């Protein structure tokens, strides 16, 4: 897409159906992503748009009965078609994940140190002493005060921000090439969030790890992600460089998301009203025909109710899936 060397991960035409009481329901519907080493790639969108399911599918963590189509090439290997033993060597070793709530992703009754070293020893087959040394190094790297003491502590003894730092240390222990970060700062205070954003940015620069960042917060996205795809109802409706997408949004949904945010930098006595998108996102089992956004779109025309817009490539690596394109100059 942008750089000349081969991308780290290339997802093409990813389609995911999940079993529900109403039968198989399409959650993700033809998603393409290209992630380069050392870059942060963002996925933005509301709850239920398929962001998390997309990330989980890359580690094959979907519920039983899920139907996945498409390809996710990590180098020459397709993550979606790996056998059991290959999968074991990829998970945590080449692709790692950080979740929104580190309290649920760490074992509450095992000291932090063992959670770090077990993982290191399993993948890297290193000695106990070496693993311990590396664990201290990792905790220092994510700025945990008193790393030696931290090894003996349990997850509940840390604050939310510190727990998330430890979760990141565990994820990065085996120097994965790709880190999937699903809303890593959503549960945190804004001051702590700023620290985690800065940490991810530093790790990306120092270790060259690529980060797939899932967040509904366009502020977080704007500060750290170089590329972004905006998801709506399981499809990418707009993608490109974050600065372009946020500076000049073309899709009515992206414009709506940005219009929903409080205006900063205005110190006027009267604040302008927010311009939220009307209505609610459709449930995956009940997505409208044509463009899935047409029911909430201010610019919708007759054809939008019938025809599904494809993601068309434009200049500067941008993509847009809108028949009307009201943002065109």
């Amino acid at each position: 897409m942008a750089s000349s060397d081969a991308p780290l991960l290339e997802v093409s035409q990813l389609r995911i159906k999940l079993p529900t009481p109403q039968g198989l329901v399409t959650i993700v519907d033809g998603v393409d992503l290209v992630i380069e080493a050392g870059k942060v790639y963002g996925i933005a969108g509301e709850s239920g748009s398929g962001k998390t399911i997309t990330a989980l599918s890359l580690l094959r963590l979907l519920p039983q009965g899920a139907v996945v189509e498409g390809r996710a090439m990590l180098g020459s290997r397709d993550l979606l078609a790996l056998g059991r033993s290959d999968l074991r060597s990829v998970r945590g070793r080449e692709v790692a994940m950080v979740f929104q709530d580190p309290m649920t992703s760490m074992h509450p009754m095992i000291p932090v140190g063992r959670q770090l070293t077990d993982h290191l020893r399993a993948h890297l087959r290193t000695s106990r002493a070496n693993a311990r040394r590396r664990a201290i190094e990792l905790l220092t790297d994510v700025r945990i005060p008193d790393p030696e003491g931290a090894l003996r502590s349990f997850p509940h003894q840390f604050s939310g921000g510190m727990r998330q730092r430890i979760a990141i240390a565990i994820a990065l222990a085996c120097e994965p090439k790709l880190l999937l970060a699903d809303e890593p700062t959503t549960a945190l205070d804004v001051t702590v969030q700023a620290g985690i954003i800065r940490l991810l940015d530093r790790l990306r620069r120092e270790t060259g790890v690529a980060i797939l960042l899932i967040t509904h917060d366009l502020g977080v996205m704007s500060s750290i992600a170089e590329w972004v795809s905006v998801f709506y109802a399981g499809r990418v409706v707009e993608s490109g460089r974050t600065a372009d997408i946020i500076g000049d949004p073309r899709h009515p949904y992206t414009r709506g998301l940005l219009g929903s945010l409080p205006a900063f930098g205005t110190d006027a006595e009267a604040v302008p009203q927010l311009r939220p998108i009307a209505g609610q996102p459709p449930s995956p089992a009940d997505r409208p025909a044509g463009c899935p956004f047409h029911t909430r779109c201010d610019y919708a025309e007759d054809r939008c109710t019938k025809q599904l817009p494809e993601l068309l490539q434009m200049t500067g690596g941008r993509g847009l899936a809108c028949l009307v394109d009201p943002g065109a100059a």
Partner: protein
Amino acid sequence: MNVIELRDVHVEYRRRGRSPVPAVVGASLEVGRGQIVGLVGESGCGKSTLAQACVGLVKPSGGAVLFEGKPVTPLTRRSRPADERRLQLVFQNPFSSLNPRRKVGAQIADGLRIAEDRADIAQGARVTEILQQVGLPAATADRFPHEFSGGQRQRIAIARALAAAPSAIVLDEPLSSLDASAQAQLANLLMQLRDDLGVAMLVISHDLGIVHQIADQVAVMYLGQIVETASRAQLWREPLHPYSRALIASIPHADGAGHLPSALPGEVPDPSRPPSGCRFHPRCSVAVQRCPADPPPVFALAGDRTAACWLQDPAEHAGSALGPPQLELPAPGT
């Protein structure tokens, strides 16, 4: 007259066999008629405790909580005094605060019945009217809470509070856990209710961005104390307390510029063992010699704002060339 007034409120949580945890340590705050006051701060700063003290859910260990000029009675086994029904609380999580087994209309009618003190009034029309006020269709009344999204459920919770014809509503994190567009819809609703019905609101939030959008006045809380109060525009234009400045600088902006937000070093200290002097001094980038020794009082400053920071001490600035933010004596009686 202020609808809600907190005067030097202290709240302690007792622990068996250990010293009590002081969660709120001398907080004073006023909410005027038809005004939205935002109370912001990090987790663990005591803002939810203060909200609960406001409506009498926890008993202050010191100071006074006044609603329409009269002390709020802490909740006991007895029924709440009739006058205090005009003071309502909306919780953060409408999944747990709404009864899952009763229809929405019945839950709103409860509020009406209590407010009117009669069981036989015609409720159907009034329920519809209240639902319309929060932007929900009349058919909502015949459905159950689980049939609605998070944003709609929060509207239902607000409708239930409105049924009691309140003059003030305390809302504890009403907008967190919602998507951006649902959050914006609800923020607009709160401003509209303030303007149309003249309801005063105390909005507790960790999100300074959304508070900046809806509040007339903002109070910033740190470790049990209110460290700064100012009008929305003042606080944004010229935050005086270093903690307020840090909060504002840590907000990531969706401007496409790719600036990293500034992190505030350190953690919120344990409230049972607060730092000496100014409680913020270990994390403060501009602390001076005096800060670890003396706790700063709340200085009343020009522009009807306050700050608890030695750098804002009007006496210190009296002779300096830079000058303080102009010195103004607090008006008597405020």
